[in-house]
């Protein structure tokens, strides 16, 4: 019997659900994640000690996850490849059907001698998630300034206290759980600052209120987080943000200012607060490099670009499906629903099955919730107003705002790709993962040139293009791919 081979990249909520559903549809599955454990962003945040202190909040989700994880990993048709990075996707020749070949590196990232492998699956599910997005401001490169995600990972995962006096700033509901875990780890959280004014937040959240209960299974969680803050007497202030961090070799104080709805600073509203750590978040950037390498169309919304998918999570690229945060930021529950749909259809399951209705509904509610989030917590257009000439924009290459501005003036060098080459913004080790969307936005504003124009034969100058999706050592790259260990291709083909 020929079983379809589905490769699932990413074993977070979306990928794990995809693997389970593809197995359920009868497919053979290879589940790949660069981490040692499945769970992704969401369940990585729930190590045992934390779960133990908050059984009421977490036990249920954790148990369901744990059951699913065991079921999938123990399944005879599932090959689980932890510590395996997908470093490239190779599109087939034009006119050849099927998804791209998957190029893998297997082994611990910091150890030498990872082995190189190639998979040729019948279908591919991309479920690689998102990472923190942070806008630049003067001083954001100082030690002691953390992305909210990093601070939470430290606080929860490693029980490291990032500081004694901490301010949490940015926008989005994620401010609350971050502040919560900092408190729990023993930090003093001085204030939590939501940049959007209360009116914007309220309008976004309360739009079409009758739909809210169905969409937001997380609301009770948020209410709890908010209650937690109140219990610790941590003020939650809207319409304010940190516009500058100061310090000699480490953040020592932050400048807080009131913002208008467009995030322009209200003059004279600045005040200074001594801190020893600052956590910032301005939402999430989907990890799009694999989707771009596969040739999947993206869709642009106000909060950024995401992979475009149809009602069955198919991308524009034949045989390639996408699920979870790379299609929109809507939380773990929506990610699971998308993953289950994607896995089922990728695995050859019947997409007309009535049982899928509930999944689609849950997915659609998640998407509606994502739109609500985007409306309640937009990034105000005037944020570049707090940049100064010397503000670092690209931390890897230390490119400052003035260098970008100078490169963008004068029409000879105004092309966004040329600006990047001349200023090196985004060319450093993080490969524009942190500053890419910011540089694209700023160069477009400064030069008036849209960033993504395509030239025949040449890829669009997208900040998400990274043909090498994960760093690969020269020695690893030079070695020919190895045969896949315990490969059971014969048996299944």
């Amino acid at each position, binding site marked *: 019997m020929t079983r379809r081979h589905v490769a699932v990249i990413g074993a977070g909520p979306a990928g794990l659900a995809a693997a389970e559903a593809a197995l359920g549809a009868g497919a053979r599955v290879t589940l790949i994640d660069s981490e040692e454990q499945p769970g992704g962003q969401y369940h990585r945040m729930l190590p045992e000690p934390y779960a133990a202190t908050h059984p009421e909040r977490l036990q249920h989700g954790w148990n369901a996850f744990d059951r699913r994880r065991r079921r999938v990993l123990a399944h005879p048709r599932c090959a689980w490849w932890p510590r395996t990075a997908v470093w*490239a996707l*190779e*599109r087939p020749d*034009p006119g050849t059907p099927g998804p791209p070949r998957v*190029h893998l590196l297997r082994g611990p990232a910091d150890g*030498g001698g990872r082995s190189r492998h*190639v998979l040729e699956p019948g279908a591919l599910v991309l479920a690689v998630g998102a990472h923190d997005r942070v806008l630049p401001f003067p001083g954001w490169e100082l030690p002691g300034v953390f992305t909210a995600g990093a601070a939470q990972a430290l606080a929860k995962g490693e029980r490291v206290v990032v500081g004694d006096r901490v301010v949490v700033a940015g926008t989005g509901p994620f401010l609350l759980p971050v502040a919560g875990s900092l408190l729990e780890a023993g930090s003093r959280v001085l204030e939590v600052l939501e940049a959007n004014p209360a009116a914007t937040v309220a309008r976004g959240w309360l739009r079409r209120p009758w739909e809210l209960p169905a969409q937001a299974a997380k609301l009770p969680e948020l209410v709890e987080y908010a209650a937690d803050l109140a219990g610790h007497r941590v003020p939650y202030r809207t319409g304010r943000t940190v516009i500058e961090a100061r310090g000699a070799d480490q953040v020592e104080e932050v400048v807080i200012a009131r913002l208008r709805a467009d995030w322009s600073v209200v003059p004279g509203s600045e005040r200074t607060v001594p801190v020893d750590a600052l956590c910032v978040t301005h939402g999430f950037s989907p990890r799009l490099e694999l989707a771009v390498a596969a040739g999947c169309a993206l869709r642009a919304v106000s909060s950024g670009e995401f992979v475009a998918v149809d009602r069955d999570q198919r991308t524009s690229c034949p045989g390639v499906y996408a699920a979870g945060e790379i299609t929109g930021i809507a939380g773990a529950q929506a990610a699971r629903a998308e993953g289950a749909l994607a896995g089922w259809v990728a695995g050859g399951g019947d997409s007309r099955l009535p049982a899928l209705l509930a999944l689609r509904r849950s997915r659609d509610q998640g998407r509606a919730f994502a739109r609500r989030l985007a409306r309640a917590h937009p990034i105000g257009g005037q944020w570049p107003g707090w940049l100064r000439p010397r503000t670092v924009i690209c931390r890897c*290459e230390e490119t400052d705002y003035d260098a970008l501005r*100078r490169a963008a003036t*004068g*029409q*000879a*060098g*105004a*092309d*966004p*790709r*040329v600006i990047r*080459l*001349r200023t*090196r913004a985004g*060319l*450093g*080790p993080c*490969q524009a993962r942190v500053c890419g969307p910011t540089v694209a936005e700023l160069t477009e504003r400064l030069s008036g*040139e849209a960033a993504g*124009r395509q*030239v*025949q*034969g*040449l*890829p669009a*100058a997208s900040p998400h293009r*990274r*043909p*090498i999706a994960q*760093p*690969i*050592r*020269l*020695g690893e*790259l*030079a*070695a*020919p791919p190895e045969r896949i260990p315990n490969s059971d291709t014969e048996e299944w083909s």
Partner: protein
Amino acid sequence: MRGTRVAVLGAGIIGAACARELALAGFDVTVVDRGGAAAATTSHGEGNILVSDKAPGPELELAQLSRRLWPEVLAAVAERSAQAAEAVAAVEWQPKGGIVIATTDPGARRLSRFAAEQRAASVRAEVLDSAALAEAEPFVTRDNTAAVYYPQDAQVQPAAAAVALLTDALASGARLRRECEVLGAAVRGGRLTAVRTRAGLIEADAFVNCAGPWAAELADRLGVPVHVRPRRGDVLVTAPLPPTVFHKVYDADYVAAVGSGTEESQTSAVVESTPAGTLLLGSSRRYAGFDDRPRPEVLSSIAAKALRLFPCLADVPVMRAYGGFRPYVPDHLPVIGADPRLPGLWHATGHEGAGIGLSLGTARLLRDLVLGRPTRIDATVFRVDRPAVVGPGTPGSSEETV
């Protein structure tokens, strides 16, 4: 030349260099590009300015002329204004010299013969013994059979170089029209008098096709086909590392690969460091049309060849790969001159993997040809009506077009 209008079609490094020479000569220059300036092939290659890889002949002469011009022109551009000086600083001009290394005995014999011929053509080529090589490149493989040092080889940041040249052209009165794709020709009395573009008609007295790998497409649109085709190349970029590679170092196979027109895909190692600390490892040569897919096995063979030169780099992470399309003509020589089939049209293209280096000499030749002056070096080998360019059976004689 005041009042004589020239439209330069394409704002890559070739178009930028030509626009500059023509504007300085007093022509009324408009540079037209379907996208932004310097964003196509010129932003997708490396910036080697080499004499070392060229056998004695017309291309070497063009390379030597260009190599003489580079420091002169950059200095002249920098003098014009503070903004120009900043544009020149971004060019990262590095006359660091190249070292060619053979790793086999036949390779060593070939290399020393080649270097001797080059010396006869006034290329500086110094044989390095093992001790001298170890001093010049302490980390290079000890497994070598010969090494030759070429002090004239240099390096630039190619996109920045094109921007500096174009900035100077604009300061000399040229205009740039971006997002202005050339779609077709307006011919009057057998002469090209205007091009149709997405932004309307552009009239001029002369037009220069500087469309790089798209030169054939552009020429087709103007009704006079030329054989300029894309030859794909890929480059690896490593994470920044402490100084390890001090010259442009490449294996002797590179010279063979540059000139070859036969194999499907070839790689030969060129290893160079950039001021940012990264290493660029090039490069492959493939005939694959405009297929922009990076092929992991091609990247793998670039890595393998680079490691043959520098085994100590095995643990260095590669963080990026990029590639572009070299514009090539089957006889591997550029096309510089008037198109006898269509008066008013000129070509300056087909520089394959050497267009950055050759841009300045090309622009100087083109300027002199347009002015009807004697050229610094013999330009007839680069003429348009040679079989490799206008193809078998394609009428190439000037009588046809009068």
